[in-house]
């Protein structure tokens, strides 16, 4: 038992500033660090999208200050086509990796998973600390490509071969930019692998007495399922990134076919396969989509249940559906590759599970919607964003049915239809999940309430704005508007420019509405109304049973014991219409009465 002393020693509450706030072992601090990183990354990504939208709508207009970012990329503030692609790549990479993965999974998961299972911390706090700092370094490496060499890579967040492997002959940023990109993402993989390891062991091993698996809240289940995906998906992207780096630095040709001619020059590389990269990337990439969205499904269900004052129609169905999403997500990755030139039979084989995966997604949404039916939903910023999540998930998901079929996807794949699809179903939906979680858990994290009026304004502007931006994308796609063009000079694209202008205006306004959120977040953190008590939403799960904000060891030396299923609402107890998981009180449930 010698280990006890050692662990307890380095696990006592830290006193120095560095140990407390910077290199902290406390999962709550690490969660907040992840959140801060995601917040910064989200605004960087958003500004990039502003630049891109302005350029698409008003091609010759100078964007003041852009020339400071890159003299060659944006001479006089007007971006070159290459620089447009570079900004697009950074927008995608930052948003998918450093926002949609870090915020709902790493940030909220780190903060609340151990508390929700009743643990004092994760089992491997040092790994947890490394997980954040490796991710942070990964972000810095990615950002450094803005100033190093000839700018960031222009290959898109998918970094398709052979563009990613031939070097600077393929355009600005394809030399050093790609190496920095691959280094950054390789590091990111390491960070998330360490995180996933902690999440899985926390969920399975550190549950308090009485917390059986089915008594875990849906959020805990969602984070657990996500970490299972993270453990296997990031482990594939990491070697892929290393091979890309080898192609660059050592001169191998894993991803470059022989005798490739670029700019009338035969490339020295020979013999690899361009398709191979897509296989490796999408084997990671599709689970990654679910890594972004499944925590949102959990968070939104958790929040809706609390505000509906009744459990979901079926707790188990939601859990099994999320699990099915995770398993199926590995079998569908080829639907990203229908136009890649792989065997058409493969397309068929990947199309079928893609259609099957819509079943668990639909079940999740139907359970949520039918549970809402007839409930007296408490309207607040968190529940509004949860509804917005469902709306976006459905609206974006419906176009997935079209894209799942190779015959239609071949027409739509390279158009704005796909851009609209994934922005709604995993971008905006996951963002709304993050917002909902922020409004909901803010009082627990800080002890203060966020401003509800600003929150509701933020919701309605974002909700209407997101539809104004991304619905026309589908129309543009059907009209044949190609993706990744920096300007629309062809005759058939000219009439669509007014639509692009509308989208750009909507994007600028919706982006500006996010500043309301930022103001609300910062202002409420320091000057917001104090939370009335430890459980302002009258919720049942363990995070609401402890002090606000939770003490270093989460429960102040006490050991919660769990007596109830996670969502005992609509019951009659001494405190109201709910009974907390930790309350030993015997209650009469509605089902008892019937």
């Amino acid at each position: 038992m010698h280990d006890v002393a050692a662990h307890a020693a380095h696990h006592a509450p830290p006193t120095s500033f560095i140990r407390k706030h910077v290199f902290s072992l406390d999962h709550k601090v690490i969660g907040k660090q992840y959140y801060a990183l995601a917040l910064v990354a989200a605004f960087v990504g958003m500004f990039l999208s502003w630049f891109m939208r302005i350029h698409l709508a008003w091609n010759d207009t100078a964007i003041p200050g852009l020339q400071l970012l890159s003299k060659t990329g944006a001479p006089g503030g007007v971006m070159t086509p290459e620089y447009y692609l570079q900004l697009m790549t950074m927008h995608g990479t930052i948003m998918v990796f450093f926002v949609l993965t870090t915020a709902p999974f790493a940030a909220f998961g780190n903060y609340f998973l151990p508390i929700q299972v009743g643990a004092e911390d994760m089992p491997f706090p040092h790994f947890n600390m490394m997980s954040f700092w490796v991710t942070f370094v990964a972000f810095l490496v990615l950002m450094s490509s803005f100033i190093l060499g000839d700018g960031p890579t222009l290959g898109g967040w998918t970094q398709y071969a052979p563009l990613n492997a031939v070097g600077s002959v393929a355009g600005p940023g394809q030399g050093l930019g790609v190496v920095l990109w691959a280094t950054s993402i390789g590091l990111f993989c390491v960070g998330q692998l360490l995180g996933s390891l902690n999440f899985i062991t926390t969920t399975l091993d550190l549950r308090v007495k009485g917390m059986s698996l089915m008594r875990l809240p849906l959020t805990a289940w969602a984070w657990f399922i996500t970490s299972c995906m993270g453990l296997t998906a990031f482990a594939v992207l990491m070697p892929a990134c290393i091979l890309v780096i080898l192609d660059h630095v050592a001169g191998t040709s894993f991803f470059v076919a022989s005798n490739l001619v670029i700019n009338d020059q035969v490339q020295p590389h020979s013999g690899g396969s361009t398709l191979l990269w897509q296989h490796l990337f999408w084997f990671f990439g599709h689970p990654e989509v679910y890594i972004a969205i499944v925590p949102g499904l959990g968070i939104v269900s958790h929040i809706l249940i609390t505000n509906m004052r009744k459990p979901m129609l079926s707790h188990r169905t939601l859990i099994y559906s999320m699990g099915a999403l995770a398993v199926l997500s590995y079998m569908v990755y080829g639907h990203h590759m229908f136009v890649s030139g792989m065997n058409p039979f493969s397309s068929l084989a990947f199309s079928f599970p893609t259609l099957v995966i819509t079943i668990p997604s639909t079940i999740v949404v139907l359970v949520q919607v039918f549970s809402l039916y007839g409930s007296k939903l408490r309207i607040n910023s968190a529940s509004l964003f949860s509804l917005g999540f469902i709306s976006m998930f459905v609206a974006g998901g419906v176009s997935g049915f079209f894209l799942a079929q190779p015959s239609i996807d071949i027409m739509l794949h390279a158009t704005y239809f796909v851009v609209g699809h994934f922005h709604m179903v995993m971008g905006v939906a996951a963002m709304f999940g993050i917002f909902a979680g922020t409004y909901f858990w803010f009082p627990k994290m800080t002890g203060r309430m966020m401003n509800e009026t600003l929150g509701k304004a933020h919701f309605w502007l974002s909700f209407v704005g997101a539809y104004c931006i991304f619905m026309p994308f589908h129309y543009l796609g059907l009209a044949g508007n190609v993706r990744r063009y920096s300007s629309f000079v062809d005759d058939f694209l000219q009439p669509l420019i007014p639509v692009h202008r509308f989208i750009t205006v909507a994007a600028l306004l919706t982006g500006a509405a996010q500043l309301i959120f930022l103001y609300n977040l910062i202002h409420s953190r320091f000057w917001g109304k104090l939370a009335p008590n430890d459980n302002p939403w009258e919720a049942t799960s363990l995070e609401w049973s402890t002090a606000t904000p939770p003490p270093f060891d989460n429960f102040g030396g006490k050991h919660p014991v769990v007596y109830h299923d996670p969502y005992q609402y609509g019951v009659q107890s001494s405190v109201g219409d709910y009974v907390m998981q930790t309350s030993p009180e015997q209650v009469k449930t509605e089902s008892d009465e019937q």
Partner: protein
Amino acid sequence: MSQADLTIGHSTTQTLGPAFSIPTKKFAMWLFIIADTMTFAACLVVYGFLRNGTPNWPRPFHSITNVAIMTFILLTSSLTMLIGLRSARAGDKGAAFRWTMITAALGIVFAFLHIREWLELIDHGMTLLKNPWGTGLFGASFFSITGLHLTHVTCGIIALLVVGVRYKGGRYNADDIEVLGLYWHFVDLVWMFVVPLVYLLNLAH
């Protein structure tokens, strides 16, 4: 050691305890092995994909003697690891330390033979980029896969030395030896995939 050792001492009586009746450290090692399996699988899939798609794939190996000796040594090291663990479980600290060190020594011999083989191939003109027998991809995938494996062996040797010494000093116990053993057996198992796929398939006719 139990779950108690991994969390703060005073809280542990209240936890449900580890799932699957195995300690958290061991469970974490299994999770690491799952992730690492994916990494190796990705590399082997890359190799298979390229090998199938390349007409002039070289078959440079003429003898299996060296790789057979290496395999024998690595398999033996798994056995010595097991004997070490059994001694540790039986409380025989001296024997457990001795067998752990023997395992590390076998690992060092394996690494030595492997590096010697690398140097021979490099001597014949094989690099990451080209080789005298056919497509340059052979060298790239050979050095990547065996390099990844050799990295694992090297990390394993260091871990064996550190854990062995600290076990002798009383800082680690039999459970730590077992967790390390899991890793070592995994490295061994991966080698059993590398040998047929990378060596035997590329034997000259």
